[in-house]
């Protein structure tokens, strides 16, 4: 593809190159799994340390984790509603934590220092496979949430408030995962590219504000992804009167 080769050669950045793992006859993007395992491992260690000794008067890490838990609960409760937010809070929280840890890990850790034979390590969310996987999980979740909560009455949503809405609502089921996945993918990849290009062109000082902007974007994208996922689930379980 011309587009890809152009990107590949641009500013000596490796774009669209992957570290392939071949297992049987399936092929995987190894760099995505390597970084996600490192980051998720760090996250799990962090959480295990924080929840090791839970006390009624929180101290240290437990405080931070409780703040995080409260933040996620508020997010889930405001979007999904008082009735079923408990069922979906772990999923929303996992999406938030996964995207946040991936984005920040990709931006904060100098992966470039680790040389791979092909491709390079980076944020797992800068790979289209990851974001599509997350977006499809969100789609499945809101269908499941709607059907399990309201049964076949879930499909009333498609003709609410008038049957004219039917084609648009059906279209929405396709645009939701598409926009979710491409928004996250585009933002994180663009951030990595901008930082990469700036570091290549002006290796001093100038990339730093852009890096901070990247951290900001990364956090915002995690919040947006989790909020939208919760909103879609909330929309599916909402009762129309």
């Amino acid at each position, binding site marked *: 593809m011309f587009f890809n080769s152009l*990107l590949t050669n641009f500013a000596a950045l490796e774009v669209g190159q992957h570290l392939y793992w071949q297992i049987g006859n399936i092929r995987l*993007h190894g760099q995505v799994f390597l970084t996600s395992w490192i980051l998720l491992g760090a996250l799990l260690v962090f959480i295990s340390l924080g929840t090791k000794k839970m006390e009624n008067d929180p101290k240290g890490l437990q405080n931070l984790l409780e703040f995080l838990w409260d933040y996620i609960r508020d997010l889930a409760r405001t979007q999904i509603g008082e009735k079923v937010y408990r069922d979906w809070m772990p999923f929303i929280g996992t999406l938030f934590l996964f995207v946040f840890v991936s984005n920040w890990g990709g931006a904060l850790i100098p992966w470039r220092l680790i040389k791979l034979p092909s491709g390079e390590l980076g944020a797992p969310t800068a790979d289209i496979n990851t974001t599509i*996987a997350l977006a499809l999980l969100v789609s499945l979740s809101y269908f499941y949430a709607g059907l399990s909560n309201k049964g076949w009455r879930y499909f009333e949503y498609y003709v609410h408030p008038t049957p004219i809405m039917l084609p648009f609502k059906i279209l929405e089921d396709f645009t939701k995962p598409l926009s979710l996945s491409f928004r996250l993918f585009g933002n994180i990849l663009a951030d990595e590219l901008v930082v990469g290009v700036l570091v290549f062109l002006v290796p001093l000082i100038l990339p730093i504000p852009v890096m901070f902007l990247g951290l900001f974007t990364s956090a915002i994208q995690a919040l947006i992804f989790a909020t939208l996922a919760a909103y879609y689930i909330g929309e599916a379980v909402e009762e129309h009167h």
Partner: protein
Amino acid sequence: MLAFNFFGATEGGLFDINATLPLMAIQVVALTYILNSLFFKPVGNVVEKREKFVSNNIIEAKNKLSEVKKLEADLLTQLQSARTEAQKIVSEAENESDKLYKEALELANNEANASKEKARLEIESQTSAARDQLSKQADDLSELIVNRLILEK
């Protein structure tokens, strides 16, 4: 079977979708279960237990406060009634003592009047007795004077 191919062909591109997608989805679902048992459940238990504890305490405190207010109002009414009772008793006692004072005063006045009257009568009788005696003596004296004058002649 795990034949890792670290030196795979450099095909691909930005939109290279392959088995990474379903595996990543499985990984995220697994992560959801792990985080649920490691993070969301335990932290949720602790936080919700504390929230319950705090709200229970608040309710208890509110109940106690309302009880205190009720008791306070109760005491206030009791105090009020005791005060009116006391006032009544005091005014009754005042009336009683006033009455007693008046009675005593009247009694004393009467007694005084009686003894005054008695004394006056006594004085009067003595005065008349004395006047009688005086007039008798005057008569005697005048008779004596008359007798002497007549005898000298």
